[in-house]
């Protein structure tokens, strides 16, 4: 019994801080979502209003594109980079360090630098594409409604694929050598090794990282917010940015809370799947 209470004492301060900063605001969001400005109970009115807003379905569809577009390419590029970085070659350590840089730099720096590179008139990217004639005339990457979301997704891919690479690389390094030797005795080529040895072995890592990426894609809104704030004409508006703008630009705290509750419910499902998957993976491994 003595041991028990000492354990509580150790974890208590951290839990108090997290309780104040997470549990209380979450509960308070629920309360805000069913009340009006004066705190009177209004039922589902806030939900009905925000769901009726024209921007809401747009933001929902954009969010799906943003999350899936980002993740598919982050995982593919990350795994390819990890396989490359797992090879033996001179200068590997340097290439490994360099690969991590996009992930470490501040999101806002990535946003401003890419915004400058994508500048319609003076941007280096338009120059690189027009000079050899790949595109006939400069593209307004950030002002054109059909290019702006893909461009945001591309920047996000650039920013986060190093994380996938480093995690998968760690997984590749922990594959026992026997497996490679067995494959080689069977005469496997390199690509057969990738397909039958490496990918199955790092599958749990890829699953864990993918779920983490889903959550981060919902969380990291810096790139979009800093470059376009959801514009032009809501073409890059995703739900977290809509929450933010509803609360702080339109000052509709209660509607923002209603949207938060729905957003939160979806996120909780993702988190739940994540924890379940992690638990079953740990079970398989042991």
């Amino acid at each position, binding site marked *: 019994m003595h041991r028990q209470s000492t354990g509580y004492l150790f974890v208590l301060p951290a839990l108090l801080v997290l309780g104040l*900063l997470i549990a209380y605001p979450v509960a308070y*969001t629920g309360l805000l979502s069913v009340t009006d400005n004066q705190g009177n109970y209004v039922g589902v009115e806030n939900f009905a209003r925000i769901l009726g807003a024209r921007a809401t379905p747009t933001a929902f569809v954009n969010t799906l594109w943003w999350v899936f577009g980002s993740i598919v390419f982050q995982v593919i590029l990350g795994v390819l980079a990890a396989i*490359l970085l797992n090879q033996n070659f001179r200068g590997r350590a340097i290439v490994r360090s*360099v690969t991590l840089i996009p992930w470490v730099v501040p999101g806002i720096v990535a946003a401003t630098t890419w915004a*400058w590179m994508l500048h319609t008139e003076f941007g280096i990217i338009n120059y690189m594409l027009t000079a050899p004639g790949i595109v006939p005339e400069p593209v307004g990457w950030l002002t054109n409604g059909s290019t702006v979301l893909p461009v945001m997704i591309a920047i996000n891919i650039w920013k986060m694929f190093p994380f996938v690479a480093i995690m998968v690389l760690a997984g590749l390094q922990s594959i026992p050598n026997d497996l490679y030797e067995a494959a080689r005795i069977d005469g496997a080529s390199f690509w057969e090794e990738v397909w039958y040895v490496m990918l199955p072995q790092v599958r749990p890592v890829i699953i864990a990282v993918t779920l983490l990426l889903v959550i981060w894609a919902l969380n990291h809104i810096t790139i979009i*917010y800093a470059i376009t704030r959801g514009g032009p004409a809501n073409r890059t508006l995703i739900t977290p940015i809509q929450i933010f703008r509803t609360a702080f630009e339109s000052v509709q705290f209660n509607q923002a809370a209603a949207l*938060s509750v729905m957003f939160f419910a979806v996120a909780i499902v993702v988190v739940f799947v994540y924890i379940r998957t992690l638990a079953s993976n740990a079970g398989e491994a042991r």
Partner: protein
Amino acid sequence: MSTVVSAPAQLKRTGLPMPLIIIGSLLLVFVCLFPFWWMGLSSIKTLRELYTIPPIWWPTMPTLDNYQKVLFESNIPRYFLNSVVVSVGSTVLALILAIFASYGFARFNFRGKPILQSFVLVGQLLPTAAIIVPLFITLRVLGLVNTYWGLILVYMILTLPLSVWMLTSYFKAIPVELEEAAIIDGASRIGVLFRITLPLSVPGLVSVLVYAFVTTWNEFIFALCFATDSSVKTLPIGLAEFSTEFNTDWGAVMAASMVMTLPIAILFLSMQRLFVGGMTAGATKG
């Protein structure tokens, strides 16, 4: 079994063909570094050279005017100081709380431990956009909007859960026998923690420190909401408003980006081995 002995001679070491490795590495390095190369070049160009078509690859008369503007004629130095105070404050506070909590989770069994641990993990995965509104109201009630303490406290949401998670797995890997021996010799729990466990966990502590510092240094959305006064604004906010303040003077924006990236790049590259080791260990052991 003689075939096994001669196996290394017969079995060709499979791997990517050298040309592919070289092309892949060059491509990877180019994609990861080019934006920073362009950022650095743009930061030492004169206004005329910035706005030239076709773009100039190497400035004919490199200038430090942009840096002078950023360092002496703007609020950036003040924001830099604010960023240092907030990042160091929240990193240290998170580390202290995480040390105790992780030790409690790693060394004690108490009722509700799995639930409390899940709560900590969920905190890490929570969509920040969903709790911005109630957090803002909470901070306003506490009188902490536009104060260092407000930001330091709020950043615990970002740093504390993962710190606890990483340190717990680190502490678990240290043999309990070492601590039991010390306790038999009459040491207190706290004495054991500080004299035996912590000195053995230095790599884990460093990776937690670097992680927490980088995260808080880069954070944008919370700072945007909770620090609106220039006496507490952090660098990311300064950079974002720089682009409008000077009607997007891209040379100055790029110089400010350099100023903001440099500390992170130095910190990260010097600690890289420890940091990546800690991250991947935490992720694969769960």
